[in-house]
Every structure is written in structure tokens, then in C-alpha cells.
């Protein structure tokens, strides 16, 4: 039966709503902080050959292409002839899933009237996967946790109990892991039921018609955008701290007919620590950056993603192959967009932002009773992970966002909730004046944080910070953002990455990086400079030095603040 254009319009809307709903179900039931707070999950629906038709927009772009490619891997490994109604498949393979062992991807085939019609897939970051725990310390992927190749978690509705027993005995939090696996399976099941309702409502026997409609329209729209761009190529590069040695990211972005190619030749090789990135994750962030700039409103599906091609030499840090350690692949991954934008700005000026903080400013605090003196009876051991953001880069027409994640979509946790999670005290979490690079448009401000423990505790501090030695670079005359700093309150220096001991009574003081400025600071609208001074985004020193505000104007602004004037 053929369907009208109007019916297909409705069905496309419905499929997007179905995957969003699928993702929401996961957010509410998952145990992992990064899922519920950071939206580190994904959900999608696929036609029978594994082409993705719709994907939920969640907190992380890191799953964008990974999800698009995943189902094809499952079909290949399981074999079409072995796909049965009631099956559920699983993997956490970093190369066939989403880049590290902590992400579990589950795929469920959808059957309608006994006939296989499509697939649902979803991915979530789990609390623990065994091995050394989440950190950069593994020398190979074997040390980073248990590896689950693509397997059947359930066949014809019967769960593989052997697998469950194996998984349980290899992780630190077995109840949570198995709970999350079932949540993923349920989330696919919810999507499946809604799909079948839709197929009944529109009397569909298969998804061929709607798939063609979605993919054709998406492909056409994406290619129209690409083919309207100048056919040019340009190089981009940036250097970041890395773990022990600086890492250089290089890319050549080429706009060609019907495709954009991003080639990372020239990028640094593998790192000894687990900050290497499987290509699938590099592709996700490269593609995300380009889509934001060129085709932001076109939904993600197989056709809208296909024209964005990404290559990198094997065993460069952005194309790590098995068995490279990859647990913290997000750090480098989060800098991919700024690298791409360095190139894209040369082809399409006045479109992309200046560099920002890039990777999230995360740290984990491992608290324990003090060992230097008798600890109080109520002292406990506890792990507390927090997500925080520096400033975003200034845009051609707008200031950078203060303390807001980009490219990640992470949410921070309330400090009141963090302090309930363990005996940690967050003494300070507020904006960092003068950290946004000066410019016609100012970079977003970074933030200050100060962290200690409750009386009777000491802790290890696992830092995952970058931009200590490589602050965000300004664009078109804009100034650099402020770099990351980290030390203890007695002046003891600390490193941006790695596990470091903090003794009883000491606090860790951090200043997270600001975004870079865009354009010449002296061209900034004087009213905006005054506003920034009144709010304390910039100091009187910066107002005078960077923006040329007169002493008289500065005094006027400060007097206005004292009078409570609304600026």
C-alpha cells in the first residue's frame, strides 16, 4: 500500500518522538552518573539493513556516528540467518560500539507479524566495567575492563545466564551493571512497541517506504547545503597538553562535490596512557562540529551523516586500533571540533567560534579515613565524580558562553547533591573573572573550584584537565582565554592529569580555562565593556588595558554598581 506525503511526514515525526522517548526511559532508570547528569547515552531506530532512520538528541555528540555504524556490525557478526524474534544483542567493543569499554550498546531486532522489519539500538555509559576502573592508567585495553564482543544477550526471549554470571563476577558493582543492561533492553522494547503501534495505525508491512522518504529527503537537504559551499580545502591544527607530552592534532578539511572529507594525517601517534581515541569517536565529534556549522537542523540518520567522511592514519591518536588503551577517549575527542573549526574558518569566515575550554573539566575524588592520625569512627571511603565546564569560545556575533560545555552537552551536578554523595566539600564554584579572552566578542568565562574533604578524611585526586600549557587561542585578533591552573591551598603544585594525593586538611584550588576572544578587543561595544565591568566579568585592570576604558568611565561604572543601577 502506498502512503501519502502527509502520512510519511507524520511517521517521520513519530519515529523521532519514539527514539526521544526511548532515551528518556534510560535517563530515568540508569545508575551511572554520566548517563543521568551528562546525558551520556543514545538511542536509535534502524531499517532492516541497519541504516539509521532516527536518533535521539542527547547530551553527548560522541555517539553520533558510532550509533549510525553499530547495527551494521551486529548484523555482520550475528548473521542474518540467526536473527530471531525475542533476541537482544550486546557489545561494549570500543571499535564496533562507541569508543570505550564503559559504553554498553544493545540492539534488538523488531518483528511485525512474524517478519523482521528493523532494529532498535541504545547505548549508555555504565558505572563500572571492571579492570583498573575508569582512568588513563591501563597500558592496553585488556587492563581497562571486561570486553564483551557482539553476542546474544537473549535468544528468542531467553537470557544467557552464563554471560550474566561472567559479567557479574568481573565488575565492582554487579547489581548496577546488570540493572543497566536490563534498562537498555527495556528501552529498546519501549521503542519496538511504539513502532509496531505506528505500523498498525498506518497499515505498514515493512519500513521500506518510510525509510526511503526519510533518507532521500535528508540526503537531498544535506547535499544542498554542502554543494552551496565553496569547493576548497584548508588545514587546521592545534596542540594540547596530553598526558606526559603535548599532542598535536592536525586535519585537512576538503569540501568536495557531495561530501566533506576530514583527514587527520599528521596528527600525533598513540599515547602510552588511555587517552587514545578509536576512529568511530573521532568521526562522531568531527561530524558533530561540521553539522553544527553547516546543517544544524537536519536530524541525524544514515543519509544525513554519510556525506561527512573522516579518515586518519592507523595508530595515530585519533585512530587507535586494538589493543590500545582508550578509556578516557573523551579528552582528545572533545578537542576535535576546535581542530576542525581552525580549518573551516579558513574556508567559511565568520561562521565558527574561537577556541573554547574544549574538554570537560572533570575530576574524581577518592576519599578515605585519614591515615596520618587516628580517624574518627564515622569516616568512610567514597568515590565522587564531578563534571564541570570552562568557558566556550566567542562567536562572530556573540560572546562565548560562561562556564558552559562545548562540544559536550554535559550538565553539572548541584554541589549540594555532590556533598551528599560522599564526605567531600566543594568550597567554591563560581565564575572566574578575566578568564575569557578579550575581543570584540569576549570569550566565555571559566570557573573557580575549591575542593576539600570533611574532617577526618584524606583523598586521591584524579584530575582530567587540559589547557594548562595550551590555552584557547583567539580568532581574528581576539585574545587567548586564560589557562587552567591547579594547586593546593598551601601552594603545593599539582598536575592537570593523573591521580595525586591530597593530605588531611588540604584543599585543591582550581581555575578552569576561559574561552578565547573573537576580533579586536578595542572594537568591542563600550556599553558591553561597561556591562562586563559592572558585573565583574572583567576587572578594572582589564577594562583599561584590554579594552581602553577611561579611568573616568571605570569610576562611573563602579559608582553605578554602588548605587544599585541596573546596567
Amino acid at each position, binding site marked *: 500500500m502506498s502512503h501519502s506525503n502527509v502520512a510519511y511526514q507524520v511517521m517521520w515525526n513519530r519515529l523521532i518522538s519514539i527514539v526521544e522517548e526511548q532515551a528518556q526511559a534510560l535517563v*530515568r*532508570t540508569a545508575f551511572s552518573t554520566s548517563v543521568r547528569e551528562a546525558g551520556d547515552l543514545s538511542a536509535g531506530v534502524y531499517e532492516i539493513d541497519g541504516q539509521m532512520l532516527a536518533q535521539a538528541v542527547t547530551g553527548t555528540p560522541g555517539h553520533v556516528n558510532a550509533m549510525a555504524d553499530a547495527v551494521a556490525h551486529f548484523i555482520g557478526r550475528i548473521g542474518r540467518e540467526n536473527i530471531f524474534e525475542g533476541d537482544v544483542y550486546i557489545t561494549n567493543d570500543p571499535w564496533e560500539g562507541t569508543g570505550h569499554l564503559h559504553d554498553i550498546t544493545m540492539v534488538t531486532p523488531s518483528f511485525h507479524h512474524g517478519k523482521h522489519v528493523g532494529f532498535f539500538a541504545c547505548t549508555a555509559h555504565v558505572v563500572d566495567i571492571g579492570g583498573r576502573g575508569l582512568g588513563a592508567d591501563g597500558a592496553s585495553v585488556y587492563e581497562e575492563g571486561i570486553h564483551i564482543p557482539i553476542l546474544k544477550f537473549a535468544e528468542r526471549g531467553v537470557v544467557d545466564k552464563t554471560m550474566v554470571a561472567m559479567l557479574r563476577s568481573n565488575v565492582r558493582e554487579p547489581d548496577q551493571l546488570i540493572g543497566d543492561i536490563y534498562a537498555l533492553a527495556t528501552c529498546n522494547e519501549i521503542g519496538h512497541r511504539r513502532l509496531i503501534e505506528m505500523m498498525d*495505525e498506518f497499515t505498514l508491512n515493512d519500513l521500506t517506504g518510510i525509510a526511503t522518504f526519510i533518507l532521500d529527503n535528508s540526503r537531498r537537504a544535506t547535499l544542498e547545503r554542502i554543494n552551496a559551499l565553496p569547493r576548497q580545502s584548508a588545514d587546521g591544527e592545534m596542540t594540547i597538553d596530553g598526558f606526559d607530552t603535548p599532542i598535536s592534532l592536525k586535519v585537512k578539511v576538503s569540501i568536495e562535490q557531495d561530501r566533506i572529507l576530514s583527514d587527520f594525517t599528521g596528527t600525533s601517534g598513540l599515547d602510552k596512557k588511555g587517552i587514545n581515541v578509536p576512529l568511530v569517536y573521532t568521526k562522531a565529534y568531527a561530524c558533530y562540529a561540521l553539522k553544527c556549522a553547516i*546543517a544544524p537542523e537536519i536530524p541525524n540518520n544514515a543519509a544525513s551523516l554519510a556525506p561527512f567522511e573522516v579518515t586518519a592514519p592507523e595508530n595515530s591518536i585519533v585512530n587507535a586500533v586494538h589493543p590500545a588503551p582508550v578509556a578516557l577517549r573523551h579528552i582528545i575527542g572533545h578537542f576535535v571540533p576546535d581542530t576542525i573549526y581552525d580549518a573551516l574558518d579558513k574556508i567559511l569566515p565568520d561562521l565558527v*567560534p574561537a577556541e573554547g575550554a574544549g574538554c570537560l573539566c572533570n575530576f574524581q575524588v577518592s576519599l578515605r579515613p585519614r591515615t596520618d592520625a587516628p580517624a574518627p569512627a564515622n569516616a568512610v571511603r567514597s568515590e565522587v565524580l564531578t563534571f564541570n565546564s570552562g568557558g566556550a569560545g566567542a*562567536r562572530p556575533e556573540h560572546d562565548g*558562553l560562561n562556564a558552559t560545555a562545548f562540544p559536550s552537552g554535559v550538565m553539572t551536578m548541584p554541589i549540594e547533591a555532590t556533598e551528599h554523595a560522599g564526605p567531600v566539600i566543594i568550597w567554591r564554584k563560581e565564575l572566574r573573572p578575566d578568564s575569557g579572552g578579550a575581543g570584540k566578542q569576549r570569550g566565555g568565562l571559566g570557573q573557580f573550584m575549591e575542593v576539600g574533604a570533611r574532617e577526618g578524611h584524606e583523598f586521591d585526586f584524579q584530575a582530567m584537565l587540559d589547557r594548562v600549557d595550551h590555552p584557547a587561542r583567539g580568532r581574528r585578533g581576539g585574545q587567548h582565554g586564560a589557562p587552567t591552573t591547579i594547586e593546593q591551598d598551601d601552594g603545593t603544585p599539582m598536575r592537570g592529569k593523573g591521580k595525586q594525593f591530597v593530605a588531611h586538611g588540604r584543599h585543591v584550588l582550581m581555575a578552569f580555562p576561559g574561552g578565547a576572544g573573537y576580533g579586536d578587543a578595542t572594537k568591542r561595544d563600550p556599553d558591553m565593556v561597561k556591562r562586563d565591568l559592572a558585573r565583574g566579568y572583567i576587572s578594572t585592570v582589564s577594562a583599561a588595558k584590554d579594552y581602553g576604558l577611561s579611568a573616568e568611565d571605570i569610576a562611573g561604572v563602579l559608582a553605578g*554598581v*554602588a548605587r544599585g543601577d541596573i546596567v
Partner: protein
Amino acid sequence: MMGTARLGVDIGGTFTDVVLEDDGKTYSTKVLTTYAAPENAIIEGIHQVCAKSGVAPTGIGQIIHGTTLATNALIERRGAKTALITTEGFRDVIEMRTESRFEQYDLNLNLPEPLLPRQMRYTVPGRLDATGAELVPLTRADIEPVIDQIAAAGYESIAIGLIHSYLNPAHERLVAEVVAEKMPDAMVSLSCEVSPQMREYERFNTVVANAYIKPLMKSYLSRLEDRLKGEGVNCSIFLMHSGGGIISIESAADFPVRLVESGPAGGAVFAAHIAARYGLDKVLSFDMGGTTAKICLIKNQTPKTSRVFEVARTYRFKKGSGMPISIPVIDMVEIGAGGGSLGSVDAMRQIRVGPESAGSEPGPACYGRSGLRPAVTDADLVLGKLDPDNFAGGSITLDAAASKTALNAEIGGVLDMDATTSAFGLAEVVDENMANAARVHAVENGEDLSEYTMIAFGGAAPLHAGRLCEKLGVHRLLVPSGAGVGSAIGFLRAPFSFEANRSVYMRLSDFDPDAIIALLTDLNTEATGFVRTCDAHAKIISEYKVYMRYTGQGWEIPIELTEEQAMAPDAETFKARFIEDYTKLFGRSVDGMDVEITVWSVNATTPPERVDPIKQVARKNDAPIAGKRQVFDPGTSDFQDAHVVLRDTMLDGAGVDGPAVVTEDETTIIVPASRAALRQPDGCIDVRTKP
């Protein structure tokens, strides 16, 4: 002596609705809202309903008032000169929000500005920990210089929000004491009173919002009292709050943030009342006006409530683009879908509708006021759902040719469709958007809509409700009379109520019955106290609720407890109640995990008004057919002849088979081909799936 008539007043964005009930009869009117002095429209409305009913203003015994003034002041940033006093190190909590972007793919995204810019946020030392114990003391000497600065700057209203104050209010109260001494004229709001809940961003934002609108609302409410007295109306005035109950005018002036969204809350109470009349335990209320549609689940004749919601969304009604307010509120989904919502075609050649709206000026193209873009109303007209000569009681003649021109220009021309197909596409997309919102809301609450009855009100709802029911698999739809002033009628049905909430963590493995009894008793005293200020003698019922989750999860679910379960608490019962509700919501429980309680809540309420169930009738005869017209049928994708019935001529038990249109001055009910309509004795039009 005071009369027995009751008056409901709802100040909306465009109209102020006034409803007077006397001796079982209802009189209503709509007058244009007078923004500069909203009380003027109320007085005008009172004059009109008093004239209609023959009741003198002195005969009004009680006024229940709801208003969007609080919401609008927040949206339009028209509040007082307000300062925030917060804990050192946390000056920017209301500005840093969640540190995330609510729209992932927009490089030019800007986040909404906080209500108070940074220079209006002051800090004091002193610090509590997560048990409420003092880590760093706070002294008067610390506070005084800060208050001196604030006083010198001439702030009118002060918000106080300190870290962990929901556990221990001592520091906030000390700050308030110093403010009271040094700034006796300033109004003060404390986060430990306005919203004693964990999560500093929501709590601080809520106390700031309260402080920001307090002077404005206080002054408005006292002017209103004076004006009413001047008119001889000396009765008590009560205010509808966002949680669906009513509070005294004094409580409203102290906690004006609780008035936000009181109008829509009245609509939900209205629907709940109809549900009670029909003995329906599962109802979906659907309110569609000019710019938005609101959907609410009403179970057991009680609207679903929530602890936090977002006001003033700035970006296509997108979650996260507004500001969170943590107060007890009726839980509704609001989407940008109304009669004025505009249609267009995007890059994927998909039809999009809303949230941009044509408003009343220029209005939809068919209004003939130079609107060139097609709105939902234009699609409704082209599809035959509206009669061009009989819109809004004949006050506007609609121009179908203009609708077609607009549809062709924006949609048909791009997608190679004729005007009818374009209109069908636009209507289907807006209906699908609303259906998706309803489905997601239902799934989030573990509900299956096929067991639900829809109650539709608001000007545009009856045009779309039938199709929405088809899409949702809902088999019964009720369109009550008086649907145009549903919220104001709802005010008259609301109980006196006040919900007190507090965040206190407790794992079931550390279950402490004595602490629980003390906490709930405390909350009960607080909530009951507010209700007592409204009525010194009424019976008060206390409803107990706790929010629970598995330890390690971030999302808690509300668990209702009986008084016995709450006041003689034991861990096994709490756990069993949690597992029961969790399983219902998510399909399964998780073995081996501890469970924790995060928030405690007591709602004190007077008993719901006794509702006499109506004697529902079956179809007795056919309604008189006033004519025929061509209405587009989505099932066959073509026009069909539809019977036209005038609502006023339908007697009890009179029915008509779809496709049909039931018309009245205020609106038109579309009965799809799959449904039949029937008039019930209370005037509701009952639209059901044909047998």
C-alpha cells in the same frame, strides 16, 4: 450581610475571565485584560456578571482569583530592584545554571540571563555541611557590612539563599534579622521558607523569583482589595496557586511565586471536577488556545502534581531554556501549538508548525488583517472545520481565499501540493505534535492512554480533540459547556490547600522512624497552618508523599502514603510501596540495590467539594440537523458531507453520527467519521467511538 454568590476571576494574557455562581447558576464574561491596572478589568467584569445575574456586588460572598501577572512579570522582567545574599564562593549559581546547552546544534545559542545580574548578588561567609552542621560560623559582624552596601544601593527586595539551608535555616534567619534591623522597609524572602529543597540552582532561583515579584504582587493585591471595597465587595479574597488549591491573600503576598501558572492550574481543576461528575478515574485534560496547548493527566479525579517546573522558556518551548521554579505545581506539558501557530516547510521539506504564533495581530491569514503566513486556524478553515460566516459568534468573517493563498505560498508551492493537501498536512503535523507530547507525558508516568477519557476546553481544543483521540487511541471525549472560561470555573472548585516539602536524605538501610514522624509532623503543622488562615473550622485532610529512588539513580519517583503508613513508618512498607510504583513505571524492579528517600511532602487540604454524579444517558434520539457542510476526513484523505448541529438545540440524549460539526458561539466541535456525539444532562457533549 455578606451574600452567598461566589466569584472566580482569571486574569489571562489577553482576556480577564469572570464567572459568578449563585444559587446553582453560572454567569460568565470575558473582558480585555488591562495591563496597567489589572484590577480595572476585574471591576468591569464584576459589573457585567452582576448585571447578568441580578446579584449586587455586596451579594458576593467569596472571590477566588488566579492570575498570570506573576508569570508575566518574570517573563517580561518587570520585577523589583532585588538583591540576592548567598554563600561566599557561590555567587554565580543562578547564572551558571546546569553548565549545559539546551540546544545541542546551535552555535549561536544564547542562554537566558538570570533574573539578577552579577552585581546584584552579594555573598556572606559561613557554611553548613550536607548534614546541616556548621562548618564555618556566620556572625552579625560578617553580615552587617554587606547589608550596609545593599542598603546604600537602595534595593527594595532581598532574596536570601545559602548553601544547605533546607537542612538548617539558622544562617538565613540571622541574615534576615540583620536586614530587618537595617532595612525595615525592604521585603525579604528566605529560600528555607520559599522552597526548602536540595539543589541550590533551583532553590536560589525560586527565592530570587519570589523576591523579584513580591513588591509588585503585594501592591497589586492591596490595590485590588481597596478597589473591591470601594465597590461594596467586602468579602474575603483568596488566590489560586500553581498546585491547584487556594490560599489566603496574605500567604499569596508572602509567597507570590506560588501564583505562577495558577490559570492553567484552574483549568486542570475544572477538568478534574468534570471527571468526578462522570466518575472517571483516568482523564487527559487538553486545553488549546491561541498560542499553546496544555496537556495534563488527571488520575482518580486529582491532577498530577510535580515539585519543579520551568517558567519563561525562551527557545521554542524547549526544556532547559527557561528558569526552574521548585514549588508544588500541577504537572502539565505545554507545547507551542495553538490556533495561531504558524506553519512552514524546513530544509528536509518537512512541514513544521509553531511555536511562532500569529497572535491576534495580524492573526491568521483568514482574519484579513494582512497576515500572510498560514496558521492552524487557516488550515481548519480550508478543511471545513470552521464556518467562515460564523466564527466567534459571527464577529469576524473569515476569508478562506486568503488562507489558501497563504497555504500555497508557504507550503503548497514548496512541496508541490494543493491548498487542501497543504492544510491537511499542517493540521496533521500540529495534531501529531500534540499527540506526541501526550504520549511522552503518559509514558513518563507509566500510563496507557487507551484507557483514558479526554476532556477538552479552550477555544481551539474542540476542533482538534476528535483527531487527537483517534491518534492516541482514546475512545471517549467530553467537551463541557463553559469551556471558554474553564480556568475561572475551576477556581470555584478548588479546595483550600498548601503543600509543604523538604529535602532530607534517608536510606532505607538507615531508616529512622522517630526522625520521620518528627519531620512529617513538622511539615503537617506548617501546611495545616496555611490552610487554617483560610478557614478556621473546616476539616483538613493531610496527604503524605515521599520521593524515592534506588541509591545511585538520579531520578526519584513520588510515592503516596496513607496517614497510617506515614505516621507509623516502617522500612518494609516503604520499600514495598516503592517497588510497586517503580515496577509500574519502568516495567521491572532492580534486585540487590538499596533504596533512598530524598524529599518529604505533606499536602494539607480541605476535602474536595462533594460532586453529585450526573445520571449519564444513552442516545435517545437524533439531534436536529441544521444543515450540511463539507469537512475533510483524515481517514479517507478527502472531503465528506458532515451534518451540522447547533449545540443549543441538542437536548439531553440527542445524538449525531460523525462526520458532524456541533457549533456554538465560542467554538466548534468536530466529530470525526469514526465517532458519534451525544448530549449529556450537564450540557457536556460526549463524543465516543462508534460501536
